[in-house]
């Protein structure tokens, strides 16, 4: 090949790189390894970790342990999907396009929306994108968000909206129920408000019951209503579209995606079928059409004039690579469960999490949950006499990973942790936790 192009040394192809810029030494990296050696090396490091299989875990807070059916892993492991890229050439990419259309359609069914995109990075960045979309729609600069929100989500929102001088105002919560305060919402909403944002279930696991009223208040002030969801709850919780949501976002990781130490995740983004909304949506959207002679259905990316590769600096978002493969997992997962499976799963989770709360609450010096509201899969645990940090360090000695310590996030609520229980927690796991907590608290007192 070098002869064909008339060179003797490969460096002739780098003749245009200024000599003094060239790296004159070898990169300081290890020497190449055989596949066997690579496997040993990576496995020995990974095996230093203790997984949530070794240690029953009660962690959630934005990344949750759920079972991933073998079929899901098998389908997304197919190299036809895994090693393809964005379906720029629809004729040769119908499989991926149809599957993404099916994903979008299932997200619409879950959320009660009409249009969903084919994924964003995660819930946090989806919130940032949703906020900016409402700013473009309303020309207003303020978003009202619940005071009870994941700090990562809030920080990400800030990063996304500060450049356009948008700002956040917090809405207070009721100290007994945790519910976002309608009075405070009424007091703070104004003609400056682009959007009202609420999460259901909330960051601390309880469900917001006054969501219909929140949507009404938002709309009375011509603000948009954004709802954030854990989609796995939507077999038992009402679709946000039914209570007035204009945009629904959320974290799709629970739908057939492993935790992977927190990434990749799956940003859900869906909205109503209003032309102005659709024009302002971020991200790729796949639509159904036909072949040119109309004889059969086919699928392709639609409304690409919103996107960066066409609209450049006037695009609705800069997103290009997204989380397609995670969206495929979600579609396969939802197809396997179906409506009945998702509902059963919701009820299973509710039973198990309520069992855990009940047993924890029976322990002296422990209150669970802190708020009197209904909780889905996550709930707060308060230690009256002990610091969460100390309890959790001791729990680890009992081979249990406690929930997330959120005491610093909500100092007024005391020593509290956010626990998560899903279908993968057996009664035995939960009892192991209860015994360990009992042991730790009695031992020290």
């Amino acid at each position: 090949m070098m002869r064909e192009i008339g060179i003797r040394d490969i460096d002739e192809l780098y003749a245009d790189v200024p000599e003094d810029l060239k790296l004159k030494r070898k990169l300081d990296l290890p020497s190449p390894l055989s596949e066997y050696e690579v496997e040993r090396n990576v496995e020995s490091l990974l095996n230093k970790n203790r997984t949530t299989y070794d240690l029953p875990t009660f962690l959630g807070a934005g990344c949750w342990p759920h079972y991933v059916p073998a079929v899901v892993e098998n389908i997304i492991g197919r190299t036809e999907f895994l090693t393809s890229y964005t379906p720029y050439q629809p004729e040769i990419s119908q499989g991926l396009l149809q599957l993404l259309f099916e994903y979008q359609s299932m997200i619409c069914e879950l959320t009660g929306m009409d249009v969903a995109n084919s994924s964003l990075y995660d819930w946090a960045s989806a919130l940032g994108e949703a906020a900016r979309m409402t700013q473009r729609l309303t020309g207003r600069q303020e978003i009202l968000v619940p005071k009870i929100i994941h700090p990562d989500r809030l920080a990400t929102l800030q990063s996304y909206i500060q450049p356009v001088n948008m700002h956040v105002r917090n809405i207070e919560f009721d100290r007994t129920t945790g519910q976002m305060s309608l009075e405070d919402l009424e007091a703070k909403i104004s003609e400056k408000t682009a959007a009202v944002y609420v999460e259901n279930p909330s960051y601390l696991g309880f469900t917001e019951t006054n969501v219909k009223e929140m949507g009404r208040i938002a709309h009375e002030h011509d603000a948009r209503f954004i709802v954030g969801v854990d989609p796995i709850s939507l077999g038992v919780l009402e679709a946000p579209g039914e209570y007035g949501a204009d945009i629904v976002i959320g974290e799709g990781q629970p739908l057939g995606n492993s935790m992977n130490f927190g990434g990749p995740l799956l940003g859900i983004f869906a909205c109503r079928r209003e032309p102005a909304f659709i024009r302002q949506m971020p991200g790729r959207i796949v639509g159904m059409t036909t072949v040119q002679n109309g004889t059969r259905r086919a699928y392709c990316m639609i409304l690409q004039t919103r996107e960066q590769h066409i609209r450049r600096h006037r695009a609705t978002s800069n997103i290009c690579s997204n989380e397609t493969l995670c969206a495929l997992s979600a579609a396969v997962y939802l197809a396997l469960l179906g409506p009945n499976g998702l509902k059963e799963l919701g009820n299973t989770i509710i039973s198990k999490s309520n069992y855990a709360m009940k047993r924890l609450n029976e322990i002296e010096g422990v209150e669970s949950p802190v708020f009197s509201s209904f909780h889905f899969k996550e709930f707060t645990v308060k230690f009256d006499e002990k610091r969460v940090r100390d309890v959790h360090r001791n729990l680890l000695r009992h081979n249990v990973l406690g929930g997330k310590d959120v005491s610093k996030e909500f100092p007024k609520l005391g020593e509290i942790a956010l626990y998560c229980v899903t279908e993968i927690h057996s009664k035995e796991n939960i009892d192991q936790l209860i015994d360990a907590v009992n042991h730790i608290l009695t031992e020290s007192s």
Partner: protein
Amino acid sequence: MGYRQSSWIEPCIFELGHRGRKGHDLPKAERSIIEEVGEVQVPNKIQRRSALELPEMSEVEAVRHFTRLSQMNYSVDLGLYPLGSCTMKYNPKINDKLATSSALTKLHPYQDEETVQGILEILYTLGRWLAEITGTFKVTLQPAAGAQGEFLGALIMRAYHTINGKQNSKTELIIPDSAHGTNPASATMAGFKVLVVPSDKNGSINVEALKTVASKRTAGLMLTNPNTLGFFEENIREIAEIIHEYNGLVYYDGANLNPILGKVRPGDMGFDIVHINIHKTFGTPHGGGGPGAGPIGVSEKLEKFLPVPRIEYDGKRYFLSSKKPHSVGKIRSFYGNVAVLVRAYSYLLSLGAEGLVEAAEVSTLNANYLLKKLAEIGVYEIPYGSERPRKHECVLSVKSLFRKRGIRALDISKRLLDEGIHAPTIYFPTIIDEALMIEPTESFEKEELDRFVEAMRRIAEEAEKNPEKIRTAPHNTSVGRLDEARASHPQTLVPSWRVFKSRI
């Protein structure tokens, strides 16, 4: 070699299955739990009452449906995928195997640090290696994709100018006309005004024009090097100096890093912020459009602005640190697309320093070989001539075929599909009319490259004898050309099954 793609008439999933069917059983609550808590009711006001019209199908029905769909999808493992600037190289299987190990998939990001020393070590080491490869001081692995890395880079520019008291005067980001669309989009997202600087007659950034555009309002410059025409920006040092003189920052778009790995480093060229597309350069699967990962590396003076938490090492243990008062904060949840990053770690272990240089050189050789062979066909124009060596990719123009035969870049790309070859990137960079942007990567043997050249030669001949066959291509794919106008027209738009049903 012939090609016929599978063409199942596969119903939409909502048309499959049967009421009452289910494809998977998850664990249920134990009887003793139900006895203990009784029936717990969701509050009336938020209980789901609306219908939930998900598919109802058995496991085998689902498997067949999705497997059939997979057969109607072209991928790197099936053949040539020379999509310019996307670096569709081979994705080694060992990396997938390691990254799907339950020792990774079952790790929660908030586990006690003592229980995740292994993964923290992998991520910490990967960050150090990427800093060495890019010639930067410190790397963050947090961005989920290249475009998010760009956005983060632009936020760091803002933070830098803000701390210097210049947030109100540093309002402009300069971007060449040959840049990827994500650059101007990211700059706008970060609140900057975009100024476009033209390319010169050699396909490089026009330095004289840059001098007139740069000013005290310049916050920075975003640049891809080698650029999207495949040329190395020879004047890169002068370009960086022009921007630095105004105290602006120079940002490196890593989309085209592959051909210069171990040869020349962005940090040494004068770049202050560098992004890396893990899914391009380091061989992780593109996943049909993601997940990728877009780490960024920065120079020493910008380290303090990196997002939190940072992964650190005190000589004994690895830990996460969020105590960084100047940090720009967060752009996503947790630490990054870890499952992608672990594949990159494994990729780098396989290749090592020597392998990276070899990958770079072979990808460059392949692009130049293709350029030479395609030029010999005598039908495709070579903008900026064949003299100057390309790096990872080359760009052709089919302007004259369009003029003479009405054959467009789009038609050629469709006809290539009939050969079982994925089309190059088309109509990009936008400064070239009827462009075909071709990036072979190092992953194709000479025979494969020759097959591509032969296909392009056949298409050139066919343009003379039977241009209609090209204009109506593809013929061998699952479906022929689509009615894309109908797909995006407000009256016929079908973005979901729900909307489809409402239209009948």
